[in-house]
């Protein structure tokens, strides 16, 4: 078979490209909302943990946060995904996209939390003291002084976490959610041609990651400009 025939068979015939296209939409949706959820969870956990580290407050919450971090980072994301789908929502009819968003968001939150905490702790204690000595309370000092500086420091790591998350969603097929990877795999099972659909899927991930990397470094440069 020629290249054109392979291409026709894998992507054009029976509108097979739709598996890829629809899968891509699912992958992006899951990644986007899981990222938002992950950042929200991670941010809250990081505030709890760093406040505990710096002031000794939030003892109970810090303990809960540590359990969360240990369990989530200590087990594979695909197992977490299956537990949420087959165990927690086992007897309920629920949209798989929501399950995936929950699973990947909760998973990512643990990593984002540690990234954010490291960012907050990387800011010199003198900044906190300067803020407090002016008369800002702890929350105001965090908001106006610590977090803007911390955000700049963690942006590369956060970008990296987004990239990891984007690729990690490729295990969504384990709960029969038709994401990009699953879409390519379905084509492979129809055409018995592994090369074209899988390489196409790989290329799409690669392009997305490269575009996002570029975006992050542009943002990073802009943030640096304001400080020098």
């Amino acid at each position, binding site marked *: 078979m020629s290249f054109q025939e392979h291409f026709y068979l894998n992507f054009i015939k029976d509108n097979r490209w739709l598996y890829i296209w629809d899968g891509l939409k699912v992958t992006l949706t899951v990644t986007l909302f899981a990222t938002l959820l992950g950042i929200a969870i991670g941010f809250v956990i990081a505030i709890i943990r760093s406040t505990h580290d710096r002031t000794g407050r939030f003892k109970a919450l810090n303990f809960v946060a540590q359990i969360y971090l240990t369990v989530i980072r200590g087990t594979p994301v695909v197992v977490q995904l299956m537990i949420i789908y087959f165990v927690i929502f086992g007897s309920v009819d629920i949209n798989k996209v929501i399950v995936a968003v929950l699973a990947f968001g909760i998973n990512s939150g643990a990593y984002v939390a540690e990234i954010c905490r490291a960012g907050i702790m990387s800011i*010199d204690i*003198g900044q906190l*003291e*300067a803020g407090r*000595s002016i008369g*800002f309370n702890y929350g105001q000092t965090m908001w*106006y*002084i610590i977090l*803007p500086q911390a955000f700049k420091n963690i942006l590369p790591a956060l970008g990296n976490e987004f990239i990891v998350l984007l690729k990690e969603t490729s295990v969504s097929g384990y709960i029969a959610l038709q994401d990009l990877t699953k879409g390519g795999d379905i084509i492979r099972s129809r055409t018995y041609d592994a090369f074209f659909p899988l390489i196409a899927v790989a290329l799409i991930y690669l392009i997305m990651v490269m575009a996002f990397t570029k975006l992050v470094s542009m943002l990073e440069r802009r943030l640096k400009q304001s*400080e020098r």
Partner: protein
Amino acid sequence: MNDSVLIRAEGVCKSFDGKEVLKGIDLEIRRGEVVVIIGPSGSGKSTFLRCLNLLEVPTGGHIYFKDEDITGKRVDIDHHRQKMGMVFQHFNLFPHMNILRNMTIGPEKLLKLPREEAEKEAMALLERVGLADRADSYPSQLSGGQKQRIAIVRALCMKPEVMLFDEPTSALDPEMVGEVLQVMKDLAKEHMTMVVVTHEMGFAREVADRVVFLDDGVLMEQNSPEEFFGNPKNDRLKSFLGKVL
């Protein structure tokens, strides 16, 4: 209690992990007074200064600010800190804000001053310390001496009733010490109440109304600069002065 007493420390103790750094210090700071605290490193003088605005919470004793016990449980310490400016050894300017913003963020957010007014006041202060042309600069673009002068006027923007200086010249290159001390001298002339922890004996002699010697967490001696330097009574102070003068 005497009206003119602005800060009163009463039996202030502080321990870190069981190690006693301050062993019951009594000190009164009167309005308009410049009190300089000296002592060997590790004597607890910085810790004591930081206790005055509760950056360090004393493990014993009381701090009264304007007759209110600010070591009490129900005190709004943030409110009191607005009236107690502090200058740090390492400046602690906010690197992500330009100089003007460093100065206006406090008045704007805490004193609820309109931005234009806060900026006008900040510019007037910058003018006074000769740094008006740096209003748009970022801290990383300034020299150490400039940073410390900014740190002083940033604290002044809050219109404090007392200024606490924690070794303000110790992190500076020698040639920049003078410009910072000059700003402090000008402040003293305007009768700002000041508590200064420093190793600058010349400043203490020239500007202080009272010099306090701390050693090993104990207030060993306090006196007018003339008596303090000319006729020290405490043996440890004598040997300390013998080494530094």
